[in-house]
């Protein structure tokens, strides 16, 4: 399964999914929702975001398992989670509204409400 280019794309997808997953988990948190939209996501939205986040992280693990032997895949996954968390934290610190792109429907609803 370790065929150069194909494996490379799968791993890139795993990294992107980790970042999206961590981003959704962050958006579900009140304090970060406020940073991104000026107000936290509604209870329902937060639940959906947490669900999306968890499934994305699980998908990332699956993608890692497709590429490498399980012993190696687990390490790649755990480390990609760390990298994704740092990236999300730095994005929140300097360009918080960028994360809003991960959940455009939340902003639309907030706009209607406001």
């Amino acid at each position: 399964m370790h065929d150069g280019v194909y494996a490379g794309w799968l791993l890139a997808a795993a990294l992107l999914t980790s970042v999206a997953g961590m981003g959704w988990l962050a958006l579900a948190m009140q304090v970060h929702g406020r940073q991104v939209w000026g107000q936290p996501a509604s209870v329902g939205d937060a639940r959906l975001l947490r669900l999306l986040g968890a499934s994305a992280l699980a998908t990332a693990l699956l993608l890692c398992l497709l590429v490498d032997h399980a012993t190696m895949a687990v390490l790649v996954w755990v480390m990609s989670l760390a990298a994704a968390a740092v990236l999300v934290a730095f994005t929140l610190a300097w360009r918080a509204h960028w994360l809003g792109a991960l959940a455009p429907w939340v902003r639309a609803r907030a706009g209607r409400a406001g």
Partner: protein
Amino acid sequence: MASHSDNVVGQSFRQAMAWLHTWFGLVLGFVLMAAFFFGALSVFDREFDRWAIPSTRFEPQPMPSYERILRPAFERMQPTRQAVDAMRPRVEGEMPARFDTVGSWSAYTTHRDPVLALFAGYQVPNAKDPDELIWADATIDPRDGTPLPDDSLKVGSGFFYPMHYSLTLDWKNLGIWIVGLSALVMLAALVSGVVMHRKLFREIFTFRPGKGGLRSVLDLHNLTGVVALPFHFFFAFTGLLIFSAAYFFPVGHTQLHDLHDLHAEVEARELGLPHKRAGVPAGLADVDAMVADAQRRWEARGMAGDVGFLVLQHVGDANGYVSVYRAGTDRIALVGQGIHYKASSGELIREDPVATPVGKVAEFLTGLHLQHFRHWLLRWLYVLGGLLGAVCIATGFVFFVEKRKRQHAKQGSQGARIVDALAVTTVTGMVLAALGILVANRLLPLDLPARGDWERYAFWAVWALALVHAGLRSAPVARGLSNPAWREQCWAIVALALAAVALNWISTGDHLLRTIGAGYWPVAGVDLALLATAAVAGATATALRRRATAARNAPVATRRGETAHA
């Protein structure tokens, strides 16, 4: 009432943890910083070797033919004069001029090694411990067997890597014990840090650089500690495991010598692999045929692979045998699937069985740390983990100093000033020292005798200069201000990193356009990392200057009352 007393106990437990975290972290943080930083560099040790020894800049090679390449190279090897002198006190009588009774010859390579490391152990006549061998090692070009000059220092695997686990303090293995102890303390620091940090998950994405002062430093400390917590924990733990396997558990060797020997003999009898020489001379069958047979057997098991480790035991003796191990390129393991042949006839003695579950866990834990696998993404993620650890420790230092310096300034104490100077030396000074050895490597004349020693001296000299500089510039800390040495050493990093890239270009002609164009990533990667280092250091220096200017203009009162932590 009960809940109240629980609360009090909880409080004092937390305070005890805070005390432990602060002081253990401070004292051994200096060592841990070196372990993390040089560990991160060691992930790419072979690549630093290529950068530092331009004659080895070619593609990785498979294990070469024994008959054509290895045998002549092994036969040329002899222990160095230093090794002979070191052995002399452990021998009754004179040392021989030549060592001819070969205990073992071995060759080790990985998928990242263009050059091949050879090891030879010889029996020493009249040694006080007859089992003790005298060792020689060599590095050859596996394409034609040409040896590399002995005094060309492999900056990555021969310097950064030993710095990572021993600080290169070789006297009585002192450095290894210090680093091992620090790994233990680090586990304590991690646990106490988790206990102290009440909002571990709620603040996992929290970094507030705008808040200034202590808050942002503490955020970064928590962030880098928490997101890479599995990495920190597992690397401290597996590092400790590797350390204890090498220096603690061999009580069999040191305390229970007879029992150990008996066990080795019983094991050898069970495996059919002789523990000792028979004393009867014997010839050597075709080793290349044994290697080919081993590769066929791996393929038949559905795990075709390259040879990582080839060992000839008791060379020239009737008890001699040849072991062929598969490189652990696609597994979290160093080598494995050993197959053993009788040296005189080439007949199969045994195939190592599939590891027991316990053996597999041990293999995974050491393989995870030593990482000889082929996975470039995971390698870079390990570098990230190591650097996050370094940032975590560095921000710990900064927090310690920032929290105390105004109070110390009021009391006229020099404590914060001293810690700050040491922190500058450990953070920016360490980067400078690592750059110093690279620059020296490119500047020193190729034919300089003991060139490798001079490169090491350059490393320590740069580091010592960084300490002196940090100390001389530290006076403002005693007045509650920041040490300009942080900023100045950042600029020095920019200068040295750019100089290293330029010197590599001038001395070898390998500039980035050429190495990237040719796809020679070991050298291109080191150069790119140096440029990235220069960029980060430059940005940091600029930000520090801006902050220093702002601090001078702002009244002190606004920067008070930040956090009560530690």
